Each structure stands twice: as C-alpha cells, then as structure tokens.
C-alpha cells in the first residue's frame, strides 16, 4: 500500500508485497479504494489541488523567495515536487527555502560536496530515494570526489565517522551522549571541528525531518518515467476489521466531535485541576501508548537490498520506542532545562552564525502558521491542536513539557492520526496512502500538509535538542 509511487524505496515495496500477499488470498475482491496519483507532485494529493494553489493570485512571491525559487529551478528547469507541495503553504515555504539555501549553498564551515553527501547519508537512513537522487545529482554537479557515490565505504574517513551519529540521530536521538561528540572531535587526522559538527548536525536533522515530510505527503519522485507497476495488493493490506473502523465513523461527526472536544478542553482547563501525579501519569501514558500505536506488524528486523543501501551502514538499526516495556528507560528530557529558544539557539548560532535565526524563523513559522479554520469551519483557534501535534512528537522522543497536560493529546488526536504521526516521524518509509487517508476525512489536503509540516519541524527540533545538548555537555 505504500503507494509509494516512490516504490523506489523498493525495499518497502518489497516488504509490503510480501506482507500483503497473504492478505490477497482472503480478500481478493477489489475494493473501491482510491488509486494513487501516479502523476503530479504527490501520490496522496490530486494534482489539480496543488496547481490551483500555485496559480492563486494571493500567492504573491516576494522577490527574495523568487530568487530562491529560481535557484532551485535551475537544475531541472522546473520546481521539484517537494517545493510544489510545500507551496500549499507559501509562508512556510519561504522560511524553509531560505534555511535550506543557507545550509547547502551559503558560507559555512563544511565544503559544498560534504553537505550534499551528508544529505545523501541522512536521506538514505530512511530509504528516501527522492532526496538521495536529488543530492546525488547535486554532488555530480560539484564534480569532486565522485567515487564517494559508489557507497559509504568509498567516502573518506571523516564522513564515515559521522555515520554513527547519523544512525542514532535518525532513529534514537536520545541515545546521543557527549562521548559520541567527543569521539568525533578528538584530535586526529579526521577529526571534526566544533563548527563543522554543528553544521553537520543541522544538516542531518534537517534531512531526516524532510524525509518525514516527503513520505508523509507522498511526494512522487521527479523522474519523468512514470511508475507503471503498482502493487495492487497494497490496497488490501489491512485486515478487514481495521478497515471497517476506519470507514465506519461518519465524517461529519468526526469534525464535530473534534471541535466539541476542543471546546470542552478549553472550558475544563479553567475548572478542573489535575494533580501533579496525574500529569506525570498522563505523560507516561502517552509515552507508553505510543508503543502500542504500531503502524503495522512490520518485521522490524527486515532488511532488503535497495538502491540506497550503499549509503547505509548498519541498516538494522532502526527506531525503537523511547519507553520500552520492562527496560531501564533513559531519563525523560525536560524541555524547560534545555529549550530551543534559550539554549539551542544560542549554541547553534554561536558555532554556525546566522543559522540560528533562520531555524528560529522556520520553527516559529511552522508553529504559528494558522488560517483560523478547520475543514469547513472558519474562525477556529487551532493553537491547541497544533500544540498537541507538536508535543506528541516530542513525547515520542521522550521530551516532556512541564507545563503541558498530556491528557489533551489523548483527547484531540484520534488513534488513526496517532498511527500516522508515529509512522511518519519514526519510520517514514512505511507511510501509506491508507494511513494518510484514514484520519480527518473532511479536512483539506492543505491542512494535512500543514500537519506534516508540524511533524517535520517537531522531529527536527527534537533531534537538534538531543544533539545540541550532547554538544553542550561536551563543552562544559
């Protein structure tokens, strides 16, 4: 079902096929499920919707963004699909492009080809062929050290050293310790400087998060060759019962009830006072529950050869839940003790000037972006919902906000949405059209893209916080 028209990530296709084959036996009748969109920027979103958004008059590009867009266009002569989809939120797109442009093209501690190679490494962790291809092309254009493209073991020692950090950051960022940082920085021929490392970390986090967005929005690869073969069985990969629960709820009631719950929460907040213990319990509950939210019964250990595997070492290392049952859990990360605004920003901006401002703007834009409407309703304050999404992602990474009542997450985010969030942030390569469709039936596509933006930024911030905290610990 990974509609992955990006079936590129052939690994996932393969896996899915293997999985659903058995489903096909008992469910052969073809269901009237939506076909994936093979053309257009996204396989989840009809092309017209995106084209329409771009042609709107209101989408007035300011000159600076226009310049960036032109810069982007140059390799392919047109906008890539990612930009097109993100263009549904022009305001954000601007912040995003500026940040990415700065990271990849402007003055920075790392040489240009390193940057693209790090991007390749980061994207390859999640088998994102889209990004790998894009940056392989960029790498070619720079035209040095081309033999690195043969695979990670051909790259120089310095970049290979980074692989460990890449791996941990991508899947279990809470495991990063100052020893990792120390290992990279210790003097030697292939050591990293602090500034270079910060640049690399920002790049890694950026591209890990971007992969989430790409899979979450079902971005089609840019290659002109249409992907002709679809795994038809993917449409039936869910068990019947689950299918029914997905479709049973009438769409109207869904929106209504969500609005109702938001209203209630707002009122309750004034009255009921949850005790300390309760709050802690709620957080723990969400944390635990996120374990149960499993996107599917994928075999965690399954590794399949794929086109990107040459950039991956230790592919078996994947996401593991922050809080595993019956194990000694790492301590919860207290957001108040190490926050982006106070600590992360200061550190990153000190070591890699100006990037802090750009990231800050990007985070702010993503978090504050609102059109004051939900589905068909207008004039809704969505801040509560946005915060719930953001904090839920952080919760899965073990970051806790003292001042947040995690009961809200439970109230606002339905199970299907949680499945989607978990998949998109933790193993994005497994995202499917079905998951995308299964939540918030009435909502517009642009709103779902908005959700993806939030997930992406939350993930990026979480990774950055863990990495930067380790660097801070190293420095003191």
């Amino acid at each position: 079902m990974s509609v992955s028209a990006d079936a590129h990530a052939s690994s996932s296709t393969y896996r899915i096929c293997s999985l659903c084959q058995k489903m096909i036996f008992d469910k052969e009748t073809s269901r009237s499920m939506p076909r994936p969109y093979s053309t257009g920027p996204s396989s989840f979103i009809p092309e017209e919707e995106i084209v329409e958004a771009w042609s709107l008059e209101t989408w007035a590009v300011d000159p600076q963004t226009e310049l960036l867009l032109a810069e982007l266009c140059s390799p392919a002569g047109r906008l890539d699909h990612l930009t097109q989809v993100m263009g549904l939120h022009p305001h954000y797109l601007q912040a995003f492009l500026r940040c990415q442009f700065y990271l990849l093209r402007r003055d920075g501690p790392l040489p240009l080809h390193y940057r693209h190679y790090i991007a390749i490494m980061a994207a390859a962790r999640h088998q994102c062929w889209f990004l790998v291809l894009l940056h392989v092309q960029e790498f070619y254009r720079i035209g040095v050290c081309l033999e690195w493209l043969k695979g990670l073991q051909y790259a120089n020692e310095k970049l290979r050293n980074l692989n460990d950090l890449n791996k941990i950051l991508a899947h279990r960022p809470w495991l990063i310790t100052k020893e990792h940082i120390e290992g990279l920085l210790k003097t030697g021929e292939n050591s990293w400087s602090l500034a270079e490392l910060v640049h690399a970390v920002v790049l890694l986090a950026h591209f890990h998060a971007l992969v989430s967005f790409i899979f979450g929005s079902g971005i089609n690869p840019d290659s002109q060759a249409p992907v002709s073969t679809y795994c038809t069985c993917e449409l039936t990969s869910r068990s019947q019962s689950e299918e029914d629960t997905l479709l049973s709820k009438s769409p109207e009631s869904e929106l209504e009830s969500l609005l109702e719950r938001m209203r209630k929460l707002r009122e309750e907040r004034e009255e009921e006072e949850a005790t300390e213990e309760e709050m802690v319990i709620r957080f723990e509950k969400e944390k635990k529950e996120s374990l149960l939210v499993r996107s599917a019964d994928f075999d965690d250990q399954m590794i399949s050869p794929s086109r990107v595997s040459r950039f991956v070492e230790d592919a078996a290392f994947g996401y593991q839940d922050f809080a595993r049952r019956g194990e000694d859990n790492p301590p919860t990360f207290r957001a108040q003790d190490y926050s982006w605004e106070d600590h992360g920003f200061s550190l990153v901006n000190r070591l890699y000037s100006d990037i802090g401002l750009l990231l800050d703007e990007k985070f702010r834009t993503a978090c504050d972006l609102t059109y004051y409407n939900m589905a068909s309703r207008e004039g809704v304050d969505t801040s509560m919902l946005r915060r719930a999404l953001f904090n839920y992602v952080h919760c899965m990474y073990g970051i806790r906000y003292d001042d947040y009542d995690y009961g809200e997450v439970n109230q606002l985010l339905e199970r299907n949405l949680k499945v989607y969030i978990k998949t998109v942030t933790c193993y994005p390569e497994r995202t499917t059209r079905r998951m995308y469709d299964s939540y918030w039936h009435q909502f517009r596509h642009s709103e779902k893209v908005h959700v993806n933006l939030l997930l992406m930024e939350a993930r990026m911030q979480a990774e950055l916080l863990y990495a930067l905290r380790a660097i801070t610990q190293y420095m003191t």
Partner: protein
Amino acid sequence: MEKMTRVSTVLGSASVGGKTMFCHLDAPANAISVCRDAAQVVVAGRNIFKIYALEEEGFTERLNLRVGRKPSLNFSCADVMWHQVDENLLATAATNGAVVTWNLGRPCRNKQEQLFTEHKRTVNKVCFHPTEVHMLLSGSQDGFMKCFDLRKKESVSTFSGQSESVRDVQFSMKDYFTFAASFENGNVQLWDIRRPDRYERMFTAHTGPVFCCDWHPDDRGWLATGGRDKMVKVWDMSTNRAKEVYCVQTIASVARVKWRPERKHHLATCSMMVDHNIYVWDVRRPYIPFATFEEHKDVTTGIVWRHQHDPQVLLSGSKDSTLYQHAFKDASRPVDRANPEGLCFGLLGDLAFAAKESLVAGGAEAGRKPGYPGGDRRYPIFFFKKPDVTEQFAQVASVLSVFEALGGGGGGVCGIGGGVAGGVAAGSRMDWFVETARLYLLSGKPFAELCDHNAKVAKQLNRPQVSTTWTMLRIMFSEPAHLSSSANHNMGKLGTLPLLNSFNMKDLSSGLNERNKESRQDNIHSLETNINNNDVDNEETEGSEGQAEYVFGDAELDDDDLYSMEHDNQTEEPEYTLPQEAFPLRHEIMEQPSAPEPPEKAESPHVSGSEAESACLTPSESVSLISVSQLLFPPHLPPAFFGPVVKEMLAHYAEQGDVQMAVSVLIVLGERIRKEIDDLTQEHWYTSYIDLLQRFELWNVSNEVIKLSTCAAIGCLNQTSTTLHINCSNCKRPMNNRGWICDRCHQCASVCAVCHHVVRGLFVWCQGCGHGGHLEHMRSWLRDNTHCPTGCGHLCEYT
C-alpha cells in the same frame, strides 16, 4: 522606603563583609534570591529548594523547603524571589505554570502558603513589589502577566502581552505603579499596575528574546535589558521615547543582569549558554569587563548582590550545582591584562596606532620611524576621560596616531586617494597628478596590459587604492585566458613599459624624430608610390585640407593611436560585436594623417624603444595570440555584470576630486562602461580633466584625452580653429575646394618642389619662401642641402 533604607544601612554596616566561598548543592540551581538582611539566601531549581545561611566561614543549610512524599512539579522552580520587606515571605515560579508563595513563619514543615495555577504555561518570573507587602507579579510563557494580592485567592489583574511569551517582569524601584516586562520577540513594555487593559509604552529593545531587565536602583529612568543577541542595553525611560544610552556587547546571550549597588554605572551579567563567567561592566566602557568572576564550571543561572547597599559581595548559583559568594577583591580584572596598544591597517594603506599616552609621550620621536621615507603625516587624537572621584578605573588617556602612506619616488607628499588629494593636499604640490598624467597609458595596448601598467604607475606614486582599482578592473573585464596570456606578456615587458612610455612624452620628441627619420629614410622611396596611390583612393572621402599642418611630433602620437585603434578593435570585436559606427568620426580624422603609412611603420615608435621587443609586438603575432585565446575561453562572467559597480566607483572618484582617475578608467574601459554613464556626466568629467591638464601645461596628454574621448562635444575641441586657409601659389587667390588644384587658374597649386608632382598627403613648406613639397622628399633634400629645392635661393628653415 526611607525607613527601610536606613534600617538596612545599619544592618549592612554590621553584617556584610565576606570572602569568596562556595558550597555544593545537590542539584543544578535555576535562580537564587537573598533575604533583606543579607543573612540568608534561597536557592531554587528543578530538584532543589533550600535556604542557606551566609556565615563568616561558609554556607550552612538552614531549611529544605522541598518536603512531601512525592515531589510535585510545583517544586520545580524556574524563579524564586524573597520578599524585600517581609522576611518570612517567598515566592516561586514553577515550570508547570504554578505560582507558589511560602511563609517561613508557618509552624509545620510544609511552608507552602498559597498556590496560584492560573498560568497555562511555564512561569518565567515572579516579582514582589519593592514596598507593598501583598503585591506579587508573575510573567509566563503563555503571554500573560498576572498581579496577585496575597490576601486573596486569585489574581487581581491580568496583563496581556498579545500571546508573546514574557521572560521577565520587574517593578520599578521608584515609581510605585510602574513595572517593566520583557518579551520573547524583543519588545519591552511598560505597564501601569492600575491599568490592565493597555501598556503605557512599548519599544523594541533587542532582536530575539529579551531574557532579562533590571531597573536602576537609584536612577529613576534607567532600565537595563539583556537579550539573546548578546547585548546589554541601558535605556533612559525618563523621556518620552525610550532612548538607548549605553550598549554593552558581550560574547554570549545574556541571561541575567543586575545593577551593582552604590555604583552608578556598574552592572553584573551572566550568560545563558557557553560562557560560564560572571562579568561586571562599567557601561561607559563597553568593550572590556570591569571585573570577572570565573569560578563556575557550568553556566551561571542566578546572580544577586548580597546586600542592596554593599557593592563588594555577589552571590551566584549555577548549573554546576554550586552556590558561590564572590568577593570583589578576588575578582579578576581583565583591564589589567588587556593589551593597551592597538595597531591597524586601513583600507587605503594607512596605519593607525593607538597607545597609552604615557608610552607615546616617551617615544614620540621614536614613533616617527626613521626608516619611513619622506615626512609622515600624523593626526594625533587625544581621548581624555573626565576625572571622576568614584571612578575605579585607572586614569587612561590614549593617543591615536594615523600614519599615511607616503608619496615616494616622485618626491613630495602624495595624498591618498582622491579625497585627500582634493581636500588636504590641495595646497601641496600636485606632482603626483602630473606624473600620473604623463605616465598613464590610455591606449595602445591590450586592455589588460593597460590596466597593469597604470596600476604599476599608481603604485609607484604611492596611491595603493588607485593601483588596486586598476588591478581589479583588469580582473573584472578580462577573460581568464586573456589574463594568463597578458601575464606572460607582462613577464617580459613590464620592466620596459615605463621606458616605452616615456617615449611618448613630449620631452623626447626630438630624439624620437631622429630615430624615425632614420627608420623612415630606408623605406621612403619604396613607399612613395604607395602613398600616392592611397591618396588617389582617399580623394573622394577626404574633406579636410588640413593634412599639411601636421608636424612631426604630432604625427608620432597619431601613429600610436592608429596602432591602438587597430588593436582595440581586434580585441573587442568578437567579444562585444562592437559596432563599427562607434568610431566613425575618429576613424576619418585619425586615419588621415597616418593612413598612407603601412602598419610596420606605425609600430616603429614603440618598437624602437628596444629592439629585442619588436618581435613580440608585430601585429601578426599579437593578433594570433588574441584570437586563439578567444576561441578557447569565452568570457565567463558578463562584463555587464560589473557595470553598476564600476559606474559607482567612477562617480566616487570624481566626487572625491580625482577626475583624472575617472577619465582614465573611462577611456581605458571604452565601450565596456560607456553606456553605463550618461553623456552629460562624461562630458563634465572630460572637460574638468582637460582643463586641469592644460593648466599644468600637459598639452600632449590633454590632446590625447580629447582624441580618445567619445563625447561629440569633447571630440570637436581639437577641431576648433584648425582650419587653414591657403591661397593659390599662382593666382594668389584663396583656394576653396581642394588643397592642390586652384579653381580659378586651374593649375596645380601645391607641387612638390623636389619631384614636381602634386602633393596630396602631407605638404610641408618653408614659411620663408613658401616652397615645399612631400614631407619625405623635403626631408631627404634638406639632409644634403640648405637652400630651397626650387632654386629660389632661400635658405629654408624647418623646425
């Protein structure tokens, strides 16, 4: 307030006095606060909430407020404040949004008195009113500030910061009703506690969050703010608009700022990240901290002066789980270690040198470096601080000396750049101008070489900026291949360039003539026919009858020009598809005198400088060189790209009074830049420069400039009063049409006295007898004879 002050002063004298000491805490501290009598300090953090007594020999733990079986989040403190009037009263801000008050007077173990959970998000700051017992203010991440009356269960008023997170709130020390709030978006607001609906005043203090603010304890109007942008700013709020009076740049984002008691201009800061030290600044000396405390191993999170009237003792808590008392006498003073001398090179090659006055006074003469050629120009600038009794800095006076790069070889002082030349050096000698005018090459070489040459000239005259400008022009407008090839050229030629150049100048015309005579003599006969043929061909197009007027010296220059025109065209044509029409006027006028002569000859003045060079200067070779390079390397950056920059640069030079530079560049760049600048400006520059040149009697240069200019108005300057009216030598009547056949008597008027043919090219005649003929014929004749070739018996004289 009055009473309180008195009381505390009494207490102060009794108890305060301390040495540097510290104790370990069990957990990182987030904030500390000291009780009014300076005898106890409270430390609060996520996992700690304790009161320590300050004793002579060290800290002793008095009380642990963190009680209960299960630690509640209400104990997780972001901030703490001890009431300054009631010493039993404490308030904390919790990370979960609670505001808690504590009463130490409660008999039981749990001292918690009230709990306000009105904020939805982390409370960043709590602040008691300095004099009012029951008033407490809080500021939170959710964008609200709330004022609590401790006798009531709820807040009495709420102030909205428009959903921007509040980082700090501070009651004014002097204005009973005023408080300041700082925000995450960089704003600072002033509120009146009685008016919760709207702030009194708002201004943007920093870019990025303002983490802290502090009112000056004595001065009513001063507010210090510190932000993530690493600055500490002091604002004067007493006027209508908040005015920034001081600004201190630190090396990390500023987490806390506290005015130092009893010292009007001192404040202490600590940073949020990276930097662990505590600095005490004198805001009037923002570049170097007055004192530094370097004890902490991790970031300092809380600082407080132990007693509000004692400037000597500072307390601090840190993430490294220690609580320190710093005595001022143990502080390190960066000023003592700072290097009091500064040395810096300026953009224009100047050198500035600052040093303590005492040092300079002793070695003032030594400062004039003996090795420095010529006289140096010093602009001594003295900085004196007004003596201040309370001032603790050593009296400092420093001297700033500026040495200008000197005019060298040419002798005399050279101004640096046009600015100085136009202004300061106006009275001094203008040798550099003359030298430059004489030595500059404006044409006659490939573009890159011209630039190189001129750069070199400028450098020799100690005008580094001008020199650099030339070099940059070359880089901008040359193709890469061209560069390398011209570099090769230069290798061979640079040394001889000035020499070659000097041949162009008027003082050597005689020598040159000698040489030319020699070289031409050889060719003269073979060429004769050619010339005549050419004349016939040109007959139709030539309208002017002025050829005859040219004398040798001028002809030489024209030869150069011919060469240069050819050359320029060759280099430029493929690159610009330069319209030939760009030179219509020039072509006609300039070719006339020299057209009859074959190219080899045109080269000769240059080549003659050194015979060895002649090989590489032959046209055929240079042409092939250029064409090859162009085939191989197309221009990589469109020169048009630099247009605006160069235009600006020229305007700048002209503005500075160095119109010479503007015009020279204009000519050398030619078409590359001409279109960028409007004609009127160009004309203006040209006229100014020509005027200057003529004042310095640089006639040749001025003529060259006129000729090379493309402005119609300038070009016609050297055509004014150049008409020569001649009469027929037979009928003595004016000849109108052509110079050689009289309309009236239909006789050939100007017949060469040697060969008896009509002269259609250069006609030279003796002004005494009026006879003359072909230039070359006359020359050869006069080599052997002194009398007129016609036999009139006149002893002809030619100059």
